[in-house]
């Protein structure tokens, strides 16, 4: 259970929130002009990286507001919380603050509990 800082209410337990998947996927303005493939990309495809992820959360058992979160999916470390209308932070803003318990690669899996 991680702590999430709702930009409207403050820091609360994860159980008060619901995850809304990848952020900054904008609904196309003119869907009818899109090819089937492009529309399919919008409807069905989302990124699922190991590492830094821009994602949406909603304070569903609270103020019910949607907001965006930058989370390191390999450690659950939350790097930034910002409102829907705020500018998407740059990836380079976080590179220095990133910590990974085992120095494991951003992509891939494995168990690295032992320090070499």
């Amino acid at each position: 259970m991680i702590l999430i800082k709702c930009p409207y209410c403050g820091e609360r337990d994860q159980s008060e929130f619901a995850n809304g998947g990848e952020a900054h996927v904008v609904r196309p303005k003119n869907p009818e002009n899109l090819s089937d493939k492009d529309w399919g990309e919008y409807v069905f495809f989302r990124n699922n990286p190991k590492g830094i992820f821009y994602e949406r959360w909603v304070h569903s058992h609270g103020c019910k507001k949607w907001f965006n979160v930058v989370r390191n999916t390999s450690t659950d470390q939350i790097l930034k919380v910002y409102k829907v209308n705020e500018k998407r932070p740059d990836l380079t803003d976080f590179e220095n603050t990133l910590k990974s318990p085992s120095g494991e690669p951003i992509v891939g899996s494995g168990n690295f509990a032992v320090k070499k």
Partner: protein
Amino acid sequence: MSAINNECSYISKNKISFSFDGKTFYAYEGDTIASALLRNNIRLVGRSFKYHRPRGIYTCGIEEPNALVQIISEHNEPNTRATIKRVYDGMEITSQNRWPSLRYDFGAINNILSPIFSAGFYYKTFMGPKGFWKNLYEPLIRRSAGLGKPPKNFRSKSTHQYHNTDVVIIGAGLSGLAAAKKFINTKYKVLLIEQDSYFGGILKNSNKVKTINGLTPQEWISETEELILNSKNITTLKNTLVTTYNFTNHLIALEDKFAGKKIDLNKSELTLHKIRTSNTIITNGHIERFISFRNNDLPGVMLASSFEKYIHRYGVVPEKEPVIFTNNSSSLSLLKKLVSLGCKPKAYVDSRKKDNIETEIKKILKDNDISFFSDAEIEGCDGNKKIETITIRQGKSFTKLKSSMLCVSGGYNPDIHLFTQSKGLVKWDKNILSFKPDTPFQKTITLGSTSGNYNFKKLCDEINEKLSILKTKKVSLDINLNVPNKFSIKELWETKKKSNSNWSKSFIDLHNDVTIKDLKQAITEGFDRIEHLKRYTTNSMGTDQGKISSINSLAIVSKMLKKEISEVGTTTYRPPYAPLSFAAIAGRSTYEFYDPERKTSIHSWHLKNNAVFEDVGQWKRPWYFKASENETMHQAVQRESKMLRESAGILDGSTLGKIEIKGRDALEFMNLMYTNAFSKMRPMTSRYAMMLGEDGMIKDDGIICKISDQHFIATTTSSGAPKVLADMEEYLQTEWPHLQVYLNSITEQFSTFNISGPKTREIMMKVFPNIDFSNDAFPFMTFKNFDYKETKIRIMRASFTGELGYEIYIPPKFGLELWEEIFSCGKEYNLIPYGTETMHLLRAEKGYIVIGQETDGTVTPIDLNYNWMIGKNKKDFIGKRSLSRPDTSREDRKQLVGLLPINKKDIIEEGQHIVELNELPKKITNPIKYLGHVSSGYHSPNLNHSIGLAMIRGGKNLFGQKFFVTVTGKTKNIPVEIVNPVFIDPENKRLTS
């Protein structure tokens, strides 16, 4: 034979009695089940998981792999660790996993059959033939696996408690108490958590420490405990086990509120503590590990420090003349204690070279004339249900000794479980031959033996130094020892076998009956990654999680693979640290508190009128009303359906979701959310509407009332309301924040009644004499507001039955009164109440769909032939673009059709398949072509035969054709004709009458 240590001051002298497998034994208050059994010379306490081998008490704590018992007093709690659970007067205990009795266990034949139970046996053995799994293997495994039996008729009252603190100290042993002392009267809010019912840890469990600051260990504990208790900033929890260490320093701990007492069933027996902290200090010590040798599982084999703990802490000497087998320096304190009590160990076997063994040990052995084997090991032990003989190997010679107990010490592992749960990194330490914490990931500090520091003299400096990052006081610890200051150990994980027999086994995991041979076999078969190996052999997957053996298995595997142990790595440590009862996790969220029940304002009337209820979401809805005691559901639904189409019926529709949509851009918003076009719709009219997902699939439906372009009321399905509101809110906030629209859930602001049937108009005119219900004044799909007594009501002309119908909305406060008024007016017209089942039947006769019945998340409005609902001229709405995707415009998609049985007596069952064959083959060899399924099937009392709605591939073009519907348990299918799905009043004459 066991003996009593009368010097022990920790155990009460109050004698109590308890029963084990029906026999009565005595104990002292404060005894655990295990110490009490040892006190009574009971060695055999259970049978093992796979081979049903006799097992005894192996340890004296949470790490116990064998001594699991069932407590049949209280609530039949299974898999209880005898080494933890305290006895109380009158406690009834049984052993587990044996039949017919512990001494003569039928399942022990598995031991002889052991070749088929080797590594991966689950995957290899139970593979076929077809049907064997369901009828033979599964019942067999279920009966013989799984140790205890689940509790019955027990309602837990466990609770949850939340904490927010600055510091949590896990474990109140020597290091934990010393650390806590540093926080006395500081600004930090501290929580000190101890798993046991007393503080002191190793100080009370062993003879290792002689004095601290000139005080006896007990004096020092009492002094320190008092200081801690008097410090306002420190809270203590005893009998509380930290099971989980999550991200953001979130801990979960389980408190046993009735340790040593019989549970009061009226009180909360467990408390689950959920803790948020800024800093975590782990001081939960170390766990001794065993050594694998032939029959290292026989009752009588016990870890040396556990043996010492029974003497020191419980005043029981499990055996006066045990053999001691060690590879390290720690057994000195046990040796000293035994000798001081006048007990003489049969032999002392040390795998270290004579020169490396401490002089003090050698002196005691010599002075007391104890057989001494250095550079030696235990080859194995033998006996019937207990150790009888022990074979020692020294070089090439073997010595066979008679003894009933063997104390084993294979070294100590820092208890890194919680530290690795917190994502801290561990490192192999060659000096202690174990993993120890290295780099914490969170604000985690480990102290004492948890951090791999086995040197008591260095403990004080370690604590002061590591806690210097916080503003704490200095502590001093001047410790005098009964053990060598420097810990010395020689690597030894398994010993060589001399003899081989089918019965003889060398175990690596006692809980799950995994042998060294299984590890070798798994590696031979290619499972050389530790995580794969673990799952294939089930090594360390028991409820003890291999606490005394998992490091041993890593070491043995690394030797087999010729790799460094740090290369092999550990398996992942996962919460909980020890089994956590489901009751504790559930807390108060059980039974009526699990999910609240929602009832309408008419509920009391439904109860009085013999309604049978159905759960719809959280709502209790009348399913049907029983006209008489003996009326079946089928009879009731047939009666209700017939009466409604003949006269009139009324349904409590208060559960339907209602959402108010208001604001400058409400019209634009509604046009985007729903398939329908609302722009040309006149105010005070309503429309049946559909909401799609972006993939074009139907999500929900309902009636939309338009009051004005700035004000709509949408109804939703009863269970879909929260989701529809959440979806609307999501689009407003994230995609269209420029739209000025406000949403409000008004489901509970209104009681809603749906009254329909040919006599409805007469009834309505009688209830509301001032309202003109004529077709001209009040046409279909319009609504109006009226004053009614001291309140306001809204009446809408709409119908879900296909008959003339009205929906009445009234504040719930006045709901019941109006409902009763309608009934008194409707009596002369035979007005009946009806439930959801009749509603479903009537709408099926009319060919109306139900979300979740005809639709399943893969159905578009086009599939239902509801093209008229799609606002084609609208530029955009949710899901519009997807309706022209190649997949959604396929001709052979499943489409809605009606089904009529060709033989009018046949019954079409819901959920059946539609096929081309009139009869299924007796034995199905090739897949049978599947055309679709029956989504709704009813006997229509108004047509007097069965009808069905079905989703069939390319159904739109199949009207008039003949297919077959399968029947449960039969091979002969029913012939049906595909028809238009409207069975009653296709011209809508009744609807608009």
